[in-house]
C-alpha cells in the first residue's frame, strides 16, 4: 500500500518534471543550432518622439551594407523582408495562401546553418526570381524534393514566376523565425529603397569575433550621427542630436545576440511571437518544485513505513546486524522504488505526451524526451531520488539505539515529526501558490472576455484575402449584403484585433512638424460602413458619408488622439485640422467626428491614438450576420465568392475567434497552471495521506488510551485533523505573500487588469483545508474507530 502510493506519487512528479524540463530546454535551445550563432546579432531601432515610442526589430535596407563597408568588425550581414505579408502561390490550378515566407539576401545561407537537400545554397538567391523551398513545402507542391530548376508562380506584381534553386531541410522548430519559402531580395515589393529612416528590414550582422559586440554598439552611435541625422534634417526641424535629445526624444540602435532573441526580445516587428524568460523561470521553478514535492513524499512515506518497522530493525541490530547493513537495506529498497517510479513515469510520459503538446503548444515527440542524451540524466535522477529519499529513513533508523526502540512505547519523538511537518507545510505552500495562480489567471481571462472593449465582436464574419477580388470588391460586398441574414458590411484590413493590418504615421496640428507637436497615430483606411458594422460609438460629430466628396480629406479621431493633439474637449476638436508630411507634399485633414475609445489591441496594451480615414483598403471584409442557420449562410457566401474569384480558396474567420487568439498565451498559461496545480496538489495529498496514516499508526496507543479514558470518536478525529489543519494554515501564511507578489508581477503585463482580491486567498485556503481534511479524515476516522483493546493489548 505504502509502496504503491510511493511509486505513484514519485512517477507523476517525475513525469511532470520530465515534461517541463523538456519544455524549458527547448525554450533555452532557440537558435543555437546555427554553427555561427555566437557571432550573429540582430539590429534593433529605438525611436522615441513625444508620445510615440517605437522599439522595433527593424532597420532600413541601407544599414546592413553601410555597417559592413565602414566597420571592420562586421564580417557579413543579411536581411529579411517580410512586410509584403502572405503570398498566393499556384498549385495546379488553385491559388494557395502561404504565410510562412520571406525575401532574403543571398548572404542568408552564409550566416545561418541549414541542411541542403538539393541545389547549392551559395548561389541560391543571388539572382532575381529565385526561391528556396523547405522539404515540406516542396513535398506539398511537387510531391518531391528533387525539384531544383522547376518554377513557382506567385501573385507578386505581374504574376512573377520564380525559379527553384535549392531545397533545404525544414527549419527547426526552436528558431525565432520559421519559413517555408525564401524569395530573392530583389523581388521584395518595397518602394523606399535607400531611405535611411524607413525601418522595414530585419538585419542580422555576422561579427568577426563574438567579443566584438560592444565595439559594434559604439559604432551604431556613430552611424546615427553620420547617416541618420543628415537624412532627418531633410524633412524635420532638428539641428543636432543633442537638441533632439534635450527635447526628450531618443533615437538609437542596439543589438540582440541571436541566441537571446527568443527569450529576451519583445519588440515591434518580431518575426514571430517570442517566448518569455519569465515563463521559463516560472516553469523551471514549478518543475523543480514538483520534483521536490515528489521526493518529499517519498521521504515522508518511506519514513512512515520504516517507523512501523523500527522494532524489527532494533531486534535485527541486537542480533548483530551492522548499522551499514541496515542502512544498505533501506537504500536498496529506496533505489528499487525510485527505479519503479521512473519506469512508471516513462509510461505516463508516453501516454500523456499528446496532452502535454496540446497544453504547451509544442510538438514534442517521444524521442525529444527520451533519447541518448536524456537517458543518462534520467538514470542519474533515479539514483539521486533514491539516495535523497532513502537516506533519511536509512540514516534515521539505522542510528537507533536498538534497546530504546524495543523498550520504548513511542518510536519517533516530536522533534523528528517537526521535520516531516515542515515537509508537508512546504508541499502545501507550493500547491496553494499554484492554486492561487490558477485562480488569478482564470479570473483575468474572464475579465478580458467580459470587459466592454467598445466594439461589437459577436456575430461578425471576416472574409479574408479580399484583395484577390481586384476591382470587384464592391460588387462582391453588395452581393453578400443582399443575402438574408447579413445585416451590414464593411471592407477594410484594419480591424480591432492585433492580428490585422496596422499603419502608424506622424501627424501634427501645425503645418511645420517638429518633435513637439507630432503625434504618432494609427492611420486606418475604412469605408463609411465601418463604424456601424462594429457598433463604434461617436461621441461628437458625424460618420463619413459616401455622398460628400470632401470626406476624402476628413478624419475621425478616437478620444486618445484628441488628448494627444491637445485639442481640449472633444467638441473643440471638430473642425480642427491635422497635417501629414509626405515627401515634399503636405496633406491636411479636418476632424469631423470623435469615437469613444475602444481596445483595438490586446488588453495588455493601452489604447493609443487612432484616426479613421475614408479610403480603400480591400484586405478583409467584415459582415455583421444574424442567422439561425450559419452553415447555409456560409455556403451561400462561398458560392458567391466562387463566382467572383473562382481560382482562389474562400477563407473566413470570426471576429470573436480572432479576439480570443490574442490571448492564446494566457489561456495556455491558465491551462498549464491548472494542470500543474492539480498535479502538485495531488502529489501533496498522497504525502499527506501517508503522513496521516503514519501519525495514526504512531498514535494508535494514545488513541486507545484516550478512548478508554472517555474520548468520543469525533473527539479523536478532531484531535488528529487539527494538527494537519494547522500545517495547512501555516502553508497558507507562507504561500499568500509569495503568490501575491508573483501574480502582481504577472498582471503588470496588462494595462487592463483585475485587482487581486482577498476572496481568492480565502477560497484557496478553504479548498486546501477541505482537500487536506478529506485526505486525512479517512485515516483519522479509521484510527478513532479502532477497538482500543487491539492497540492496548499487553505487550
Amino acid at each position, binding site marked *: 500500500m505504502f509502496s504503491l502510493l510511493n511509486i505513484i506519487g514519485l512517477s507523476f512528479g517525475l513525469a511532470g518534471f520530465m515534461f517541463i524540463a523538456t519544455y524549458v530546454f527547448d525554450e533555452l535551445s532557440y537558435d543555437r543550432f546555427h554553427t555561427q550563432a555566437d557571432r550573429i546579432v540582430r539590429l534593433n531601432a529605438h525611436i522615441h518622439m513625444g508620445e510615440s515610442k517605437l522599439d522595433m526589430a527593424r532597420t532600413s535596407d541601407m544599414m546592413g551594407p553601410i555597417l559592413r563597408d565602414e566597420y571592420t568588425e562586421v564580417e557579413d550581414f543579411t536581411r529579411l523582408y517580410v512586410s509584403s505579408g502572405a503570398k498566393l502561390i499556384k498549385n495546379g490550378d488553385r491559388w494557395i495562401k502561404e504565410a510562412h515566407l520571406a525575401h532574403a539576401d543571398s548572404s542568408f545561407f552564409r550566416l545561418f546553418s541549414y541542411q541542403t537537400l538539393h541545389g547549392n545554397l551559395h548561389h541560391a538567391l543571388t539572382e532575381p526570381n529565385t526561391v528556396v523551398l523547405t522539404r515540406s513545402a516542396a513535398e506539398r507542391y511537387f510531391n518531391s524534393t528533387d525539384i531544383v530548376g522547376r518554377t513557382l508562380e506567385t501573385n507578386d506584381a505581374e504574376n512573377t514566376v520564380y525559379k527553384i534553386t535549392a531545397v533545404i531541410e525544414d527549419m527547426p522548430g526552436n528558431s525565432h523565425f520559421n519559413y517555408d519559402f525564401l524569395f530573392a531580395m530583389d523581388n521584395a515589393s518595397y518602394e523606399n529603397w535607400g531611405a535611411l529612416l524607413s525601418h522595414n528590414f530585419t538585419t542580422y550582422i555576422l561579427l568577426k569575433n563574438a567579443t566584438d559586440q560592444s565595439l559594434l554598439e559604439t559604432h551604431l552611435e556613430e552611424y546615427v550621427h553620420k547617416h541618420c541625422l543628415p537624412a532627418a534634417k531633410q524633412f524635420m526641424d532638428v539641428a543636432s542630436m543633442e537638441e533632439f535629445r534635450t527635447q526628450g526624444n531618443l533615437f538609437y540602435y542596439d543589438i540582440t545576440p541571436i541566441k537571446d532573441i527568443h527569450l529576451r526580445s519583445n519588440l515591434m516587428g518580431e518575426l514571430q511571437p517570442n517566448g518569455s524568460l519569465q515563463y521559463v523561470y516560472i516553469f523551471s521553478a514549478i518543475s523543480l518544485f514538483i520534483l521536490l514535492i515528489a521526493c518529499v513524499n517519498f521521504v515522508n512515506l518511506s519514513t512512515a513505513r520504516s517507523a512501523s518497522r523500527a522494532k524489527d530493525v532494533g531486534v535485527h541490530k541486537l542480533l548483530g546486524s551492522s548499522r551499514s547493513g541496515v542502512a544498505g537495506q533501506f537504500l536498496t529498497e529506496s533505489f528499487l522504488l525510485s527505479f519503479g517510479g521512473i519506469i512508471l513515469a516513462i509510461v505516463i510520459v508516453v501516454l500523456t505526451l499528446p496532452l502535454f503538446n496540446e497544453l504547451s503548444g509544442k510538438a514534442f515527440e517521444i524521442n525529444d524526451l527520451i533519447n541518448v542524451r536524456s537517458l543518462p540524466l534520467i538514470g542519474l535522477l533515479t539514483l539521486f531520488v533514491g539516495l535523497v529519499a532513502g537516506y533519511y529513513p536509512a540514516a534515521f533508523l539505522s542510528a537507533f539505539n536498538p534497546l530504546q526502540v524495543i523498550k520504548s*512505547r*513511542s518510536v519517533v519523538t516530536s522533534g523528528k515529526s517537526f521535520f516531516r511537518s515542515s515537509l508537508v507545510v512546504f508541499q502545501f505552500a507550493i500547491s496553494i501558490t499554484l492554486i492561487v495562480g490558477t485562480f488569478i489567471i482564470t479570473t483575468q481571462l474572464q475579465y478580458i472576455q467580459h470587459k466592454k472593449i467598445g466594439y461589437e465582436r459577436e456575430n461578425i464574419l471576416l472574409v479574408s484575402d479580399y484583395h484577390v477580388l481586384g476591382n470587384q470588391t464592391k460588387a462582391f460586398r453588395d452581393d453578400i449584403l443582399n443575402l438574408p441574414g447579413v445585416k451590414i458590411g464593411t471592407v477594410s484590413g484594419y480591424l480591432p484585433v492585433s492580428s490585422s493590418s496596422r499603419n502608424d504615421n506622424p501627424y501634427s496640428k501645425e503645418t511645420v512638424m517638429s518633435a513637439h507637436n507630432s503625434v504618432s497615430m494609427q492611420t486606418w483606411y475604412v469605408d463609411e460602413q465601418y463604424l456601424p458594422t462594429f457598433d463604434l460609438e461617436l461621441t461628437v460629430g458625424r460618420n463619413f458619408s459616401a455622398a460628400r466628396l470632401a470626406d476624402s480629406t476628413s478624419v475621425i479621431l478616437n478620444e486618445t488622439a484628441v488628448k494627444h493633439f491637445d485639442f481640449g474637449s472633444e467638441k473643440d476638436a471638430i473642425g480642427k485640422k491635422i497635417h501629414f508630411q509626405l515627401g515634399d507634399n503636405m496633406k491636411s485633414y479636418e476632424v469631423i467626428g470623435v469615437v469613444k475609445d475602444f481596445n483595438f489591441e490586446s488588453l495588455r496594451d493601452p489604447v493609443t491614438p487612432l484616426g479613421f480615414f475614408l479610403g480603400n483598403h480591400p484586405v478583409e471584409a467584415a459582415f455583421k450576420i444574424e442567422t439561425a442557420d450559419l452553415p447555409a449562410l456560409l455556403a451561400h457566401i462561398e458560392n458567391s465568392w466562387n463566382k467572383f474569384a473562382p481560382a482562389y480558396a474562400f477563407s473566413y474567420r470570426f471576429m470573436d475567434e480572432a479576439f480570443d487568439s490574442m490571448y492564446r498565451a494566457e489561456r495556455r498559461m491558465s491551462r498549464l497552471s491548472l494542470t500543474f496545480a492539480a498535479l502538485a496538489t495531488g502529489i501533496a495529498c498522497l504525502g499527506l495521506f501517508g503522513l496521516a496514516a503514519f501519525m495514526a499508526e504512531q498514535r494508535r496507543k*494514545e488513541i486507545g*488510551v*484516550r*478512548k478508554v479514558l*472517555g*474520548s468520543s470518536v469525533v473527539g479523536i478525529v478532531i484531535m488528529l485533523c487539527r494538527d494537519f489543519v494547522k500545517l495547512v494554515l501555516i502553508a497558507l501564511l507562507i504561500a499568500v505573500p509569495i503568490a501575491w507578489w508573483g501574480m502582481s508581477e504577472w498582471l503588470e503585463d496588462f494595462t487592463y487588469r483585475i485587482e487581486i482580491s482577498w476572496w481568492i486567498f480565502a477560497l484557496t485556503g478553504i479548498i486546501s483545508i477541505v482537500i487536506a481534511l478529506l485526505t486525512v479524515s479517512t485515516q483519522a476516522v479509521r484510527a478513532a474507530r479502532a477497538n482500543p483493546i487491539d492497540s*492496548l493489548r*499487553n505487550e
Partner: protein
Amino acid sequence: MIKLEHIFKWYNIGGTRSFVLKDINLEIEQGDFISIMGPSGSGKSTLLNVIGLLDEPNEGHYYFMGEDVLALKSKKRTALFQSHMGYVFQSYHLIDELTVYENIETPLIYKNLSGKERKAIVGDMLDRFGIVGKKDLFPAQLSGGQQQIVGIARALAASPKLLLADEPTGNLNSKQGEEIMALFKQLNEEGMTIIQVTHSEKNAEYGKRIINLLDGQVK
C-alpha cells in the same frame, strides 16, 4: 452490580478454538473488593477487559447494574462504563506526549469538568501520591514504578464507582505496594468497588474475596 453468566472467550488459532475464558459465572456486589489471581496466561487480564468492556466475550451474558450491556449499542455502552469506571493498565499506557499533570487531567477533560475543578482534583492526586515534583515530567523520564503510580492516579482522578486494576503494584517495591493497597482499602471502605489482578498473595489478602483462575476457568 456486575453479573457474568456463561462467559466464553476464545481465539481461532490455526482453525481450532483456543479458549481463554471458559464458562465464567461471577457476581460482584456494590462495595466489593475482589482480587483475581492465577498463573500467567490464565486469562486474568482478559477477564478484566471483559468486565471493563474493552473486550467482548464470544458467548454469555453480562449485566451491569441490571442492564444487559452486550445488547447495548457500543456508543451507549462506552458512555455507561466511562462514567463509572477507572482502569489501571498492566503496562500503564500513559500518553507519551503529555506530562504527568496532563496525563492525570485527561479523563477529567473528557468528563467536561471546568479548568478550576480539574486543577483542584489533579493537585489533590499529585499530593496524595507524592509526585508533585514530577508533574512536569514526561512518562519517558519516569521509572516504571513512577509510571505505574501515575497510571493509578489517573484512574482514580475521575473518582470512579468501579476500579479495575491489572497488577497495579507489579512494578512497585513492597513498601509502595503496601501504601497503594492501603489506599485501595480505604477507597473501598468509602464505597468504591474494586477488582484487582495480582500475583502477590499478600496483596490479594487486602480484598474481601479472591478468585482463582486456571486456564480460563474459575477454580
